């Protein structure tokens, strides 16, 4: 027999039978190819379109780009779908819903993150209500960068996913892993908030002065306010020293 059996560490009746019949292992790889062709040529899409990337996604399904020619039909139910395309910002409130929909999709399933918000949160990353990338809670196969990416880029993402399905059917190891927890310092605010001891006192003065230059705080005695704030923080530090 052509196959080297020396490394086998497991046994299964079906596998043993397949190995005994000459030519059957060749046939099963052929069947694998046919099955993977079936998977990659009928990628039914479940869209999670939450913002402007969703508008570009509509162009992907429309006639000019026409994802339908790859067999990618947009479906309204997660139970009919193979690919979840997350296009747009996912908020903390939306994330459990997306996870629930992902869990409702039958295997085999894939996920595509479209746009920089779905990939990393982009400039909404530090906001209290936004998830910094959907790969913090579901495994993502293909990332399509852009803000928003054009429909051709999304089509390219679909083609890359087809390549990936083909590769994994031919035995290459392409396991997905959720990204680890984002690093702490990336979430800290760029400017210390009011009352933060690390906030420079000059910043207070600049911000109040810019507000005053707009005519908002006409009757505000700026110097007095800043003096009082300084004495307050001095008192606080005194208290800390006493304790």
């Amino acid at each position, binding site marked *: 027999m052509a196959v080297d059996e020396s490394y086998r560490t497991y046994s299964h009746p079906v596998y043993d039978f397949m190995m005994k019949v000459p030519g059957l292992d060749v046939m099963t790889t052929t069947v694998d190819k046919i099955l993977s062709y079936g998977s990659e040529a009928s990628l039914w899409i479940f869209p999670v379109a939450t913002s402007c990337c969703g508008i570009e996604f509509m162009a992907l399904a429309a006639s000019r780009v026409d994802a339908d020619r790859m067999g990618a039909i947009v479906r309204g139910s997660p139970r009919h779908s193979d690919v979840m395309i997350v296009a747009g910002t996912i908020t903390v409130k939306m994330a459990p819903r997306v996870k629930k929909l992902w869990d409702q999709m039958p295997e085999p399933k894939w996920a595509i993150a479209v746009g920089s918000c779905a990939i990393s949160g982009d400039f909404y990353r530090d906001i209290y209500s936004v998830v910094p990338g959907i790969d913090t809670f579901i495994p993502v196969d293909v990332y399509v960068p852009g803000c928003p990416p054009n429909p051709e880029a999304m089509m390219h993402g679909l083609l890359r996913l087809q390549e990936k399905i083909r590769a994994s059917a031919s035995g290459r190891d392409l396991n997905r892993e959720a990204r680890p927890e984002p690093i702490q310092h990336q979430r800290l605010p760029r400017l210390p908030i009011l009352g933060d001891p690390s906030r420079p006192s000059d910043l207070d003065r600049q911000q109040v002065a810019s507000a005053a230059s707009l005519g908002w705080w006409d009757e505000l005695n700026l110097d007095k306010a800043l003096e*009082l704030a300084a004495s307050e923080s001095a008192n606080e530090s005194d208290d800390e020293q006493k304790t």
Partner: protein
Amino acid sequence: MKLLGAENSPEVQQLLIEQFSATATTIGGPPEIAVDRHVELAKILRDEHQYRIFGFVVAVHYPTRVKEATEAGEVIRVSYGLRSVGKGTRLASWQLCVPVGQSVPTLVYLFAGADWQEREQYDLVGVRFDGHPDLRRLMLSEDWQGHPLRKDYAIDTKVHPWR
């Protein structure tokens, strides 16, 4: 006397000053009135001055650090605006100033449109509306801790398990 908040029509300004002893604030915005006469003012504006559309309610948190500017301690300032179709004026607006933790009387029973807007302000700033029939969170998830538009809300507050 001219109050800040020039968008009020002369008629409404006169009403605010003479009947409600409204004052200009040091930080700008519409004229300030007492909290306990707030519903009365809204009722008069709705019934006698044709302001029948609820425009907005916006709350802003002023922390202790700027209390000398407001001279009232740590406060939440709540601004209201009503709109009128018949009058042809833009809006009638006023503001309230309450210490943090004190509630504001609701306007839901005068204007149905105030319902969700008051819920939003409760959600984000944490000002409570007395007598609101259904004061739940509107924008954020139900199990959220704290009110994110307060100035003392730490921006890196950890939200389990997606943040």
